[in-house]
């Protein structure tokens, strides 16, 4: 017997046969298949006991109640709560993608960081909280010792009147700096209009759900305006087959947006001429005497011609009749005069008409004169503070903290002029002007900015003057960011004191803007902090205590929660409102029932626990009408001619007339029109011939454009004709595109006087000819591979004109040229 080749083959053959008769090959195949399922990169769902945490989403000020589902310690799903009064189960895509904001390691700062390379090199070193707090506290103390506490500047993106915002402002006050700048928002413009025409301060509630005819001047109701959760929930009533009469919605939009396509009517005036359209409608209402006589005669000022020491003034009625005939408005806006007349008749003839002004998601400030013109319509039909219209209300009865303590350093500092000149005679109506900060920093007369704090904001990317701000950073010696994210602004900082993300901390929202009843939302942490981050509120308390003296005295709390609790005590002491969400009838259906004012809690502690558990305190009640009491203007009436504008401009002109000041402010019109709502052609230095097209930045609900970067889930929802790989598409009407030899998908360059962007073209019949529509939110140069380098940022080439009354940048009037690459 020898092992020759034949025998070997026979041996192998036997082996094969035996193997096949054994379980080996069959079991092995099965096992290999399962082995492939367990490769480490295959995503695996979290394991653990299911639990649900009820809280409130604080990614925007919309305050949607959310239920966060967890498996063990891991957040797996976020859904809207059906029992929460604001959103009643609805939630926007960003809210639903919240887990990615929490768990995306690539975009988080894991602890305090100190810059080690040059600015912008993105080289940081991890340090301890002790080191980080000491460094910043020492620097601020140094400023105070030099007698220059006003060189501490803060840019705050936290929701207005929220506890963290108040804390940051208090910190600056106690240190002695007047330079608290808020990121400008559309709610500021609404507040300013209410102030100028009604004299009111505080929230501007809009009872949209109870209106039967809505003229929406640019408000993207289905793309986030007014709080996405609230609008989605309201839309169910507008568009649903309910027994109540459906609301007629007219969407005024230069583009066939989601809202325009689903509205009852879509009107497309030339962008920037919305004020003229509003004035045209006002003309028809006045001409046909369809205004509310009782309101106009008894509670409005400036409607008819009036007299004062200076002589006769033109009234709003005569102004509108002379300057805004439908025939003329047609020429300005492109809307046929018959349509203007019909809209005016429908508006004035409705039971509860409402005119709202805004743009996109309602995140960015708007044109004051335009918003005034739209609001004037509400005044004309006498619906102010009536069901279905814009209301007036007092702010929530939150308790105030004890006054901060000031030493002489602080008092001196606070008396100095703000670096951004907000509130000064030149800018009497502004509260914070970020772009002026850039000029102050770049000033050759010595920098008035030393230490900059940035909280809950990413101004370098998401604010119109972001590019200028980035350049200004070179002149700012010390920048501290409190952002949890590796965003553009924090990447340019010297010190990072990362906050928790929204799911890891307690935060409050004081009256979601536009909500028609008072509501205080309190969010609770859903998971323990993942990294060595700290609540910014607690950080400010620690900083104050390290600075010592009167600053420390002003921050006597041990934890941020104490500070919130002190304010909430005011709600309890008022004896009003209810805590806790329950489903059932929506709140806006029972606003005049006068109910819900029972005190259900035997003690403040039990109310506090109830508030933490449910997430909201609210008052389902509003006192409508009361025209004799609500207006706080100098005339105690609704003012078509705003005394405050007149006074403000006259004091800037130092005794001259308002007209003298107006031209300096860049106001085109003259005479009495300056203090009245009117249409002004937007100023721009760009030449029409060189830059024939209008650039219109647009906002989409599925593309985050605020300070939080777009999560990967939402990237996935962008269509191929919006974002393909790294190229952002702009929408162009096919007629316009063909003029420049552009086809679907063509690569092109958009050039404005400020710069250029490379994009690709998407042909869209719903885009107005002559206008380039470009999405806001992309063009990031920080974050991680899901955002970095994708698309372009329209703000990089935006025209820097200022709105004449608010001083805020005009971001909707940039002229561009487009050419093939």
């Amino acid at each position, binding site marked *: 017997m020898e092992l020759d080749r034949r*025998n070997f083959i026979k041996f192998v053959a036997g082996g094969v046969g035996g193997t096949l008769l054994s379980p080996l090959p069959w079991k092995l195949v099965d*096992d290999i298949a399962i082995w492939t399922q367990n490769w480490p990169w295959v995503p695996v769902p979290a394991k653990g006991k299911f639990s649900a945490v009820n809280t409130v989403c604080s990614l925007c000020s919309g305050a949607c109640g959310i239920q966060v589902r967890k498996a063990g310690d891991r957040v797996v799903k976020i859904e809207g709560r059906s029992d929460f009064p604001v959103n009643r189960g609805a939630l926007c895509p960003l809210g639903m993608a919240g887990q990615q904001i929490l768990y995306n390691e690539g975009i988080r700062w894991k602890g305090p960081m100190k810059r080690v390379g040059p600015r912008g090199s993105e080289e940081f070193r991890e340090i301890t909280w002790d080191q980080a707090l000491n460094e910043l506290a020492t620097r601020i103390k140094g400023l105070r010792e030099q007698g220059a506490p006003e060189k501490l500047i803060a840019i705050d993106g936290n929701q207005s009147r929220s506890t963290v915002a108040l804390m940051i402002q208090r910190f600056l006050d106690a240190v002695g700096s007047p330079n608290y700048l808020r990121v400008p928002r559309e709610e500021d413009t609404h507040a300013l209009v209410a102030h100028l025409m009604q004299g009111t301060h505080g929230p501007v509630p809009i009872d949209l759900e109870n209106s039967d005819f809505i003229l929406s001047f640019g408000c993207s109701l289905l793309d986030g305006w007014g709080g996405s959760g609230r609008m989605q929930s309201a839309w169910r009533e507008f568009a649903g087959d309910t027994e109540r009469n459906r609301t007629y919605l007219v969407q005024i939009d230069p583009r066939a947006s989601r809202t325009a396509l689903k509205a009852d009517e879509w009107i497309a005036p030339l962008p920037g001429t919305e004020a003229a359209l509003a004035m045209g409608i006002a003309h028809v209402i006045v001409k046909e005497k369809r205004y509310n006589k009782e309101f106009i005669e008894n509670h409005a000022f400036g409607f008819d011609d009036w007299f004062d020491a200076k002589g006769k003034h033109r009234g709003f009625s005569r102004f509108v009749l002379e300057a805004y005939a439908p025939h003329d408005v047609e020429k300005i806006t492109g809307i046929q005069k018959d349509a203007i007349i019909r809209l005016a008749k429908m508006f004035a003839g409705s039971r509860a008409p409402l005119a709202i002004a805004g743009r996109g998601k309602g995140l960015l400030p708007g044109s004051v004169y335009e918003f005034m013109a739209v609001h004037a319509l509400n005044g004309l039909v006498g619906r102010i503070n009536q069901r279905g219209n814009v209301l007036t209300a007092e702010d929530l009865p939150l308790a105030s903290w004890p006054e901060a303590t000031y030493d002489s350093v602080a008092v001196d500092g606070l008396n100095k002029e703000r670096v951004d000149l907000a509130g000064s005679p030149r800018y009497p109506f502004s509260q914070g002007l970020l772009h002026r900060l850039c000029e102050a920093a770049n000033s050759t007369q010595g920098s008035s900015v030393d230490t900059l704090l940035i909280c809950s904001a990413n101004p370098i990317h998401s604010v119109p003057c972001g590019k200028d701000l980035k350049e200004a950073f070179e002149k700012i010696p010390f920048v501290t960011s409190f952002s949890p994210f590796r965003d553009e602004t924090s990447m340019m900082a010297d010190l990072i004191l990362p906050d928790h993300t929204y799911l890891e901390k307690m935060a409050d929202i004081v009256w979601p803007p536009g909500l028609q009843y008072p509501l205080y939302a309190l969010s609770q942490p859903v998971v323990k902090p993942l990294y060595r981050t700290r609540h910014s509120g607690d950080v400010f308390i620690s900083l104050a205590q390290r600075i010592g003296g009167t600053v420390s005295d002003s921050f006597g709390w041990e934890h941020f929660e104490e500070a919130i609790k002190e304010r909430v005590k005011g709600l309890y002491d008022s004896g009003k409102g209810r805590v806790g969400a329950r489903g059932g009838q929506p709140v806006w259906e029972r606003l005049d029932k006068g109910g819900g004012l029972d005190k259900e809690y035997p003690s403040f502690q039990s109310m506090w626990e109830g508030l933490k558990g449910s997430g909201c305190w609210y008052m389902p009640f509003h006192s409508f009408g009361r025209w004799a009491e609500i207006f706080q203007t100098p005339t105690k009436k609704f003012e078509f001619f705003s005394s405050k504008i007149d006074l403000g401009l006259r004091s800037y002109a130092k005794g001259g007339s308002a007209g003298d000041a107006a031209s300096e402010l860049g106001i085109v019109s003259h005479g009495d029109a300056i203090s009245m709502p009117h249409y002004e052609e937007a100023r721009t230095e760009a030449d029409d011939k060189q830059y024939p097209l209008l650039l219109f930045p647009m906002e989409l609900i599925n593309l985050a454009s605020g300070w939080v970067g777009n999560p990967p889930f939402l990237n996935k929802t962008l269509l191929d004709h919006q974002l393909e790989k790294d190229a952002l598409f702009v929408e162009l009407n096919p007629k316009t595109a063909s003029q420049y030899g552009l086809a679907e998908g063509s690569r092109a360059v958009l050039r404005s006087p400020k710069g250029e962007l490379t994009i690709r073209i998407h042909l869209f019949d719903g885009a107005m000819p002559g206008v380039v529509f470009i999405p806001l939110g992309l063009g990031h140069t920080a974050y991680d591979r899901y955002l970095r380098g994708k698309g372009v940022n329209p703000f990089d080439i935006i025209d820097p004109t200022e709105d004449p009354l608010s001083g805020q940048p005009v971001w909707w009037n940039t002229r561009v040229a487009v050419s093939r690459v």
Partner: protein
Amino acid sequence: METGQEQERKTKRDGWIFFVVGLIVALVVGWVVFPLLLYSEQRQPLNYSHVKHGPESGVGLECEECHFFYEDGSFSGIPGLSKCKECHEDPESLYTDSPEEAKLLEAFVEPNREIPWLVYSRQPDCVYFPHIAHVKMGEIECKVCHGDFASNDTLLAYKVNRLTRYSIDIWGRNIAGYKSNTWDRMKMDDCAECHTREAKEYNNACFVCHK
């Protein structure tokens, strides 16, 4: 000298011997060596005795004490440390002189560490299995799928498949996959067998278990 014919017969016989040897070697490898290599035995962190804790014992715990349904219908599975701590809370006082109890208190109760039990019936992540549908609606007894744990004084040896990382109890302790009791295997076919037998057509589609 052998003749040509004799030589041929010899060669043929040799050939057959090689064939048979090859066959036998392969069979032994396939049936004996392969299962030995494929599975690696791991020890449970503690040798828990169901008998000593169960309804018939001095302790007298009912099964539902540790293995129950939550209000939302999800199944508690294997109890966490907090359940054991309901009785075994003091690291100093022991109920028996069993070394396992000592280990429980020293290694887990004291440092408050969850016991890393090795789960015999763990299924892949692609499988959606609701206990409540089977126990409350299907009225199936636990031992039909899991075998009779209640009468075990010790825990079965946990043998894990080196390739798939699942317990041997899924394929079955018989390498051929042959089962004599319903609880011998827990592969998809075994679930499908019962779903088919119960003749509920809607119960046998892919998406019923693979959501």
